[in-house]
């Protein structure tokens, strides 16, 4: 037949950079044959801010504030990874009470992140009711975090050598009360995502990643655990207070989107249990250990289990007041490359769900800035002082 000799024309569908699957920038190109994806391409960097380079210009204390801003969702994990790595270099250990509070905030953050993700992926599935409800409930945990640390997003709970905030009886009570509400809601959501027929049509058997694939492609975090890979640094290499307050790894063997939903929601129950345990048995004592101003020369690696998977920090100190090199490897980059491969062979309409299924976070991946000056469109690099002055002037003008 003549048709068989015709090479099918490749049709490319660009997705992004604006709002590819969620409200963060990333660019994807999918080649399709009809409705079926035959190839995938990723371009990142739209939120690259040069944080690794900037970290070499700032002292040890300034970097804490810079690195907390790598990610707007798991900010505490980044600050914690940095603090733990610097403490390792300085051979200082934060007091037990500080370590427990660090874990407490980290688990509250995990709850906030998983609720946020549940909303986003429900929205991708066209299930906006679940999106609205889960984001409404997320406010509860945001309020708890604000009550504890004073901030909704960049909590700034850490400081080198310990934490800045303490937990008193009233705060503990409000956390317990908030958790009670959240736990009840979580039971409801678990029921919804595992029983709602129309939702299951979007998740069951979609984006399946086998255990072997997950291991070879280097998937991490809940995405890997949904494919039965038992990797959780809180268990494998317990840091901060996870030795005193152990967690159980939540696994699922199905490896599809439904499994990724279930694993994350079941992890929430683990977090609720852990937070209650910490509040019951919070060690007494100091909040901060004394840190030297200069950090001894050396190298430190710190790996933490962020809500999305392993965060990797490498810090090299030359003995001065600034790091010589600081490397951040965030979980999304590992999961993104594996999941983009999985998209091949799927319906194009499933792609947003598959992408959202790993809980991608683009600002974590991208860490460099090039400022395009708004007045003449020319590109220039602004110094921190210029940018600060520009910001102040801008809002002054707005206020007039």
């Amino acid at each position, binding site marked *: 037949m003549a048709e068989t000799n015709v090479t099918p024309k490749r049709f490319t569908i660009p997705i992004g950079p604006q709002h590819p699957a969620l409200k963060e920038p990333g660019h994807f190109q999918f080649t399709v044959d009809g409705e079926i994806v035959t190839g995938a391409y990723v371009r990142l960097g739209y939120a690259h801010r040069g944080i690794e380079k900037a970290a070499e210009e700032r002292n040890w204390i300034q970097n804490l504030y810079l690195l907390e801003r790598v990610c707007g969702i798991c900010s505490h994990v980044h600050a914690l990874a940095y603090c733990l790595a610097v403490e390792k270099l300085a051979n200082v250990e934060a007091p037990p009470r500080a370590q427990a509070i660090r874990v407490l905030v980290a688990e509250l953050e995990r709850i906030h992140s998983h609720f946020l993700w549940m909303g986003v992926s429900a929205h991708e599935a066209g299930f906006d009711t679940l999106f609205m409800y889960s984001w409404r409930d997320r406010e509860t945990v945001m309020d708890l975090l604000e009550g504890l640390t004073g901030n909704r997003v960049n909590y700034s709970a850490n400081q080198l050598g310990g934490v800045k905030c303490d937990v008193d009886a009233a705060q503990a009570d409000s956390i317990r009360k908030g958790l009670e509400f959240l736990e009840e809601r979580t039971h409801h959501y678990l029921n919804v995502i595992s029983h709602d027929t129309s939702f299951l049509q979007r998740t069951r058997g979609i984006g399946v990643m086998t255990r072997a694939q997950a291991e070879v492609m280097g998937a991490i975090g809940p995405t890997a655990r949904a494919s039965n890979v038992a990797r959780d640094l809180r268990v494998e290499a317990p840091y901060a207070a996870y030795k005193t307050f152990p967690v159980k790894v939540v696994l699922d063997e199905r490896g599809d989107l439904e499994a990724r939903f279930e694993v994350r929601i079941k992890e929430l129950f683990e977090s609720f249990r852990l937070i209650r345990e910490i509040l019951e048995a919070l060690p007494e004592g100091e909040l901060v250990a004394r840190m030297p101003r200069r950090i001894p020369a050396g190298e430190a690696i710190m790996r933490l289990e962020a809500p999305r998977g392993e965060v990797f920090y490498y810090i090299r100190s030359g003995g001065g007041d600034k790091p010589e090199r600081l490397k951040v490897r965030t979980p999304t980059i590992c999961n993104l490359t594996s999941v983009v491969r999985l998209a091949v062979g799927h319906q194009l309409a499933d792609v947003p769900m598959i992408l959202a299924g790993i809980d991608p976070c683009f600002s974590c991946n991208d860490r460099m800035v090039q400022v395009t000056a708004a007045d003449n469109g020319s590109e220039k*690099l602004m110094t921190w002082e210029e940018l600060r002055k520009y910001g102040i002037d801008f809002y002054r003008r707005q206020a007039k």
Partner: protein
Amino acid sequence: MNTEEIMNLANGIAHAWDWATETSQPRPNHLDVTVKQLKELLPIAVGLRVKRLGQLSAIVGLDLGLEANEIEVLYHFCPGEAEIVLRVRVPRQGGELPTLSEVFPIAEVFERELHEMYGIEIAGLRNTERLYLPENWPAGVYPMLKDFDPKVLSEPEGKA
């Protein structure tokens, strides 16, 4: 596998290449393997992979400065609690490394980042397109080098 078994395995692999490696174990869970012959990097990494120690966590570049005129590249393998670091050195100009992406698919993005940030050529990498830097970033400017000067970006010839 517990950490001790992992470290024994990793030490065994490093010693199998003892003519090309130097090992040190500064902490019980940390093994530094300096690979002195570049062409042995891939076989050693494959050795780790075969023994199920191939969880490549990150590839980190270190500019050792103008004086040393070298870049050190660290391949971090982190199975469980263990940290196995393969360290290689390449010249600051015209350095070239073999790709690990055929064995570790995740290495592709790390190597592309290493290439655009440090200017190290990665031999055998199928996709060498930019991953993070903008399209109009000037060619031959590598921002993570210690002598990177942001002024080159505002010069007229610096613009594409």
